[in-house]
């Protein structure tokens, strides 16, 4: 599934990221093009391991936000570690964008009001 504003996992991810990055008026579709360097607040020149650490930090932050603020639950058979590792893998890849994180989030979490 592509980046869709009819998907509550996608819209919740977008809404939290735009608040977290203080880009409050950025619409859903253009925000999907944000790169992972921007999402994880990576600085140029930092060692690759530090960038990986920040990707992991951000995956942990998203897991916290989804479960505590949005009330999302893990899909059947998915653990917290699975969810964080999967998101971190997407965020570690420099070529990925916010829209590439949408489907993994949808597969790992069940958001309130989401139709199975």
């Amino acid at each position, binding site marked *: 599934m592509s980046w869709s*504003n009819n998907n*509550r996992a*996608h*819209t*919740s991810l*977008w*809404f*939290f990221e735009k*608040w977290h*990055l*203080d*880009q*409050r*008026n950025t*619409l*859903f*579709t253009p925000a999907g*093009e*944000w*790169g992972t*360097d*921007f999402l994880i*607040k*990576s*600085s*140029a*020149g*930092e*060692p*690759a*391991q*530090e*960038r*990986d*650490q*920040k990707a992991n*930090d951000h995956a*942990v*932050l998203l897991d*916290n*936000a989804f*479960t*505590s*603020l*949005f*009330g999302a639950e893990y899909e059947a058979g998915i653990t*917290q*570690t699975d969810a*964080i*590792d999967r998101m971190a893998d997407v965020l*570690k*890849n*420099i*070529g*990925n*964008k916010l829209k*590439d994180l949408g489907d993994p989030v949808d597969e790992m979490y069940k*958001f*309130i*009001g989401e139709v199975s």
Partner: protein
Amino acid sequence: MRITRYFLYFISLNAFSIFLTQVCYADPVDELLQKLIKEQGTKVCEKLQPLSEQNCQDLLAGSFSALRGKLSDEQLAVLKEKIKKEISSPELLNSILIKSLNGDVPLALEFKSLDSESGTPVLGLTYSYTHNFLTPPPRPDKDDKWHRTYSMAFSAAGTLTQDADDNPDNFLDTKLTLSQTYTTRIPEQSKEFQQKLTQFAFEDAQCDEGQPQTPSCLQARNSGLALLDSTSEYLRAFQRYEYGIDVGYESNQNFDGKLRKLSIYTRAHYEEWGSNSLIGQLKLNPSLRLGIDNISPDSDTHRATAGDDSDYYRLSGMASLWVPVGNFNNTPVVLTFNYRYYHEIDASDVVKNANLESYSLRTYSLAGPNGLFVTYSSGRLPTELVNDEVVAVGWKTYF
């Protein structure tokens, strides 16, 4: 240049296949070729985006002419030079890499254009790999303010260039890490809060690009953002603190200057949360890493060559800062800074006289959310003898 040759083959094969299937028996050939390039070239060039269509069409036409022996040596040299220039663009190589691997690029491979003061632009390939062996414990109790995890991970990272002597970031790092991490736990909100936030986000997203910004969408946006803002009344920052032990190797690209390393380190990452604090208002997002390393150099390192191949201790540090500086033409712009520092503790006179006691590298950049970046680096890393200044300009955009 092997990669240029491959690109020539790629272009030529596409061109030749069109030639064979559709114009083999045509006459006059030149007229049909031009027609075909116009008709079929667009399809071929679509596969080679982000190479501009005009450049792609020119290269195709040149390749056809070259295949038919209609180019002079001088024209052929110009064509090769043009292909070499186009193929050296990191955005094209990254695009081909991602497309060929269906977006699942292993080792986080990325091409970069690196411009050193001492030479012409250099094409570099960066890689990074991490694998965690331990599973963190379950989520903490609701009353815990911190989430504590243990980790054991293998990681490898570096930058490679065709000629190691031209590599301005000639530093490969491979290690095993055992660590403990403390992470801020965001307090769990009420069911009502969670339902409203999810619903407001969904409603706001319906006012998308090309859609009218209706009052109900704007109301949902403001209400959702107000809910998130309210969390900064009791949460000022999202923080991660870590300490651990690293065991690994540092080397240059040729592996003729290896350092065996054992480090004890601590790391902190602070992200502002809302604007209910001074750091939050300033939008500062710092991270810091400090370590004490025990280094066992081999006989090919600069230090050993200078006359001291003994084990030694060194301080290592890294500081990063990420600060949004505003929106220009509706595009957010971020200023970033990174500083890396290495200093040998109680260095011998041999090391001091050879200027191998301390190393530092500072990097500044202006970046946007979609990948545009300009960076300036100054200094040197361990395994490098002299200071260097590097400007890297690239579009980190992928198609």
